[in-house]
């Protein structure tokens, strides 16, 4: 026990903590309410478990790539607060996708389809958005050259798969039905309105660059580069992602500007790539380019300088390390060898969400009220301290919800609210343990002031031991579970910590303070610590 316990100091500390949390929680321009989980605001939650086709363990790299592809697709829905999180690792990893507000029935199909990586010869290129200047002659930012191991051979044959370009003009006057510009823009041939669609497409306004579209590799495709700078007409795919064996980012062995990406094809892929590059290298720009298309978006469109027959290629360009690594990742895992099993889908309408939130709040409020009444009836003046302690704990918890919602993306779910309501009981119990100890001391004939101190020393141990078990349970639950169990465990753990804080800094300090007041020592039944009512003769108190 502290030599000189100073209740004032504790009270100042807890006040500072509360003020600090309040300021932090209410920083202007940020969210000032706890983030609500899907079950409270409506939306779709999908839990996916990644599985390899051959049953081998999923590498962390594959998982990261899967998540980033899913994230890209989710971003494509245009919901600002959509979340993609991973829980667990290895074969028990789960990908949890939460899309608030959206209850479209097609979401799930779009999510679980594996990503598609296609290599499509370029038919035509144009600026992504209409430019006031003259007709563009864009040069692709990257160019492919044969790897040192490659055997270059000049065979300038143009295959039938790359028909003449429709030579589109950047004429913004073309008007087409905007519905036709919804991705993916595909056709079996280049006749019809395809040139018009290409002309009308404005990458800045289109959703194409958001990705998330599954295109048919056997059809022509109009698409945009990821940053929206160029738009392309692309021929059916020559190669698909599974034709690639590996891709690595590295520095050119002879030195030179920037990083490069080395590419290795499978045996099958090498054959296809040879045919394709023979055609491409013979064509004129821009038809000597092939576009690397991931989920309907052009990631890169290098030009082919010579046929590449050996199945290894190098994509050069002035890549930064990050760009090169990102491209290598896309190439390596673009077509995921990973399938996604749908474990659980929950779609909750916003109305039902609001109902659940209301019910949760009413239940919490009602529960709190009952507890307050009970504490007041039983502990009288001490009960008031308990009620204020509960208020301080509630305020702390609420502020933490807001801060954690912003900081680590904590969302309050129905299970979380239930955790908080259950915590009312556990929090109150700390006060009950303390008060019962004080009363025990008084029963032994001690004066209130002394009882408050010795009672605390003994109650403290019990409170800590009991709260420790509670936090232990919450921690184990949090780390070993998925989904709603986690939300519950987190709230339970958080509120238990807040309970310790409040009991140590607030409850004890206030009880110590009021123990000095004349009224509390008056023996009035309303104090809740009346020696008489606790079975001690009034006289014994006086004599001590």
């Amino acid at each position, binding site marked *: 026990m502290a030599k000189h316990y100073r209740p004032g100091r504790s009270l100042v500390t807890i006040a500072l903590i509360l003020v600090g949390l309040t300021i932090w929680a209410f920083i202007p321009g940020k969210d000032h309410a706890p983030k609500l989980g899907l079950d409270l605001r409506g939306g779709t939650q999908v839990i996916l478990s990644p599985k390899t086709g051959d049953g081998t363990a999923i590498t962390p790299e594959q998982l990261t790539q899967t998540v980033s592809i899913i994230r890209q697709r989710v971003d494509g829905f245009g919901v600002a607060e959509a979340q993609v999180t991973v829980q667990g690792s290895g074969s028990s990893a789960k990908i949890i996708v939460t899309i608030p507000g959206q*209850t479209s*029935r*097609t979401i*799930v199909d779009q999510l679980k389809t594996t990503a598609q990586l296609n290599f499509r010869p370029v038919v035509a290129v144009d600026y992504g958005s209409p430019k006031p200047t003259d007709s563009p002659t864009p040069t692709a930012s990257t160019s492919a050259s044969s790897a040192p191991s490659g055997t270059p051979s000049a065979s300038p044959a143009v295959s039938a798969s790359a028909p003449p370009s429709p030579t589109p003009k950047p004429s913004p006057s073309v008007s087409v039905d905007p519905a036709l510009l919804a991705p993916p823009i595909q056709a079996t041939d280049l006749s019809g309105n395809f040139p018009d669609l290409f002309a009308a497409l404005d990458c800045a306004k289109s959703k194409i660059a958001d990705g998330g579209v599954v295109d048919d590799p056997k059809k022509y495709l109009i698409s945009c580069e990821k940053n929206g700078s160029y738009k392309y007409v692309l021929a059916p795919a020559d190669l698909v992602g599974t034709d690639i064996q590996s891709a690595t980012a590295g520095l050119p062995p002879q030195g030179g500007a920037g990083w490069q990406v080395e590419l290795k094809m499978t045996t099958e892929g090498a054959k296809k790539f040879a045919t394709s590059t023979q055609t491409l290298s013979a064509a004129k720009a821009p038809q000597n380019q092939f576009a690397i298309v991931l989920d309907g978006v052009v990631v890169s469109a290098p030009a082919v300088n010579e046929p590449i027959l050996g199945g290894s290629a190098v994509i050069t360009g002035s890549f930064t390390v990050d760009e090169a690594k990102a491209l290598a990742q896309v190439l390596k895992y673009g077509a995921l060898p990973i399938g996604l*099993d*749908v*474990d*659980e*889908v*929950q*779609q*909750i*309408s916003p109305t*039902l969400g609001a109902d*659940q939130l209301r*019910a949760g709040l*009413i*239940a*919490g409020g*009602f*529960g709190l009220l*009952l507890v307050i009444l*009970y504490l007041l009836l*039983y502990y009288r003046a001490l009960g008031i301290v308990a009620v204020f302690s509960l208020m301080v704990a509630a305020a702390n918890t609420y502020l933490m919800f807001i801060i954690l919602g912003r900081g680590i993306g904590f969302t309050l779910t*129905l*299970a979380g609210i*239930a955790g908080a*309501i*259950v915590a009312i*009981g*556990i929090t109150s*119990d700390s006060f009950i343990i303390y008060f*019962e100890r004080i*009363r*025990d001391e008084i*029963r*032994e*004939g001690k004066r209130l002031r002394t009882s408050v101190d010795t009672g605390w020393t*003994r109650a403290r141990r*019990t409170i800590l*031991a*009991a*709260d420790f*078990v509670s936090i*232990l*349970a*919450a921690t*184990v*639950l949090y780390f*070993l*579970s*998925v989904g*709603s*169990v986690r939300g*519950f465990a987190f709230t*339970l753990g958080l509120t238990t910590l807040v309970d310790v804080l409040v009991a140590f800094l607030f409850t004890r300090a206030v009880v110590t303070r009021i123990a000095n007041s004349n009224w509390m020592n008056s023996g009035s039944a309303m104090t809740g610590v009346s020696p008489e*009512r*606790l*079975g001690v*003769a009034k006289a014994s108190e006086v004599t001590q």
Partner: protein
Amino acid sequence: MAGLGTLGNRLYSGEVSYNIVGRRKLWYSVSAVLLILSIATLGIRGLNLGIEFKGGAEFSVPVATATDASIVQARTAVTSTGNTVSSVTIVGGSTVRVQTAALTSEESNKVSAELAKSFGVSESEVKVQLVGPTWGSEVSKNAARALVVFLVLVALFLAMYFEWPMAIAGLVALGHDVLITVGIYALSGFEVTPASVIGFLTILGYSLYDTVVVFDKVKENTKGITSGSRMTYSEAANLALNQTLVRSINTSTVALLPVLSILVVGVSLLGAGTLNDLALALFVGMLVGTYSSIFVATPILAQIKERQPENIALAKRVTAKRKNSPDAVDNLGAVLVGAPIVHAAGPRQQRVKKPRARRSGK
């Protein structure tokens, strides 16, 4: 309230004492009957598992007032899509809940569209939940793993903070609580959902929390007891139980009130759902947990401790002393006889001396 307060005083002073530890055979029998019933029901009826564990699809359609006609209507709607209904229930009077076997997302879209059309609500109002067949087993696997890890950690903590006999007694009480709670689920046919599993897991924490508080008092009361000859370990443990009885009642009340409020509010506003599944498990578990921390954990602890040589010796000394000077049999002797014994005398000052002397040593 005042009644409970006064009882608290008398319990504390030992003026009123319920012989809980001494009647352990009675409590063991009660628990044994409950446990056998639980295990038997679990074996025969099994648990009513929610679709989260079986895999399948669930559709909840909000309606103005759900009647038996709505059930038929829902059945017809789903059957018309070529899918089989496994159950239709009315939840909270304003929701029709349809469960089917596992569906593909296409099939589920068709079913939800058909239901929406049939009940005249917009399709986005239909709550849909699809669960893959492996999900439930994974939830259970995770829960089982969490359980084992938690038990090991908690056993270590109890053994370190208290002693091994307390760890064993605490864990026995814990297993008792979970088994009986699950048994009650099997018996009543309440649906087990992931939320109920959360509830069961929380009971673990709560049950131990309650036991820790009681054991802390037992630890305090039995400190240095073997050097004297005033009371046996069982008596000291029983005194601790009585002294913390009011706390146990208050704590349980305060913990149960919010849970009860979830149940009442949840049922009246929402019908079944996460809140209720959780609250129900907690409500049952907390009741059983309070019972076990008083009537199971401490008697088992006393039984284990009474087998230790120093406590056998202590019991012998206490008996010998009481035989020699019958006057020395104070209220604590009453513990051996039966309960409750109400003494006419006021607060016992001689009871006060001992604990204080012990405390000064701390």
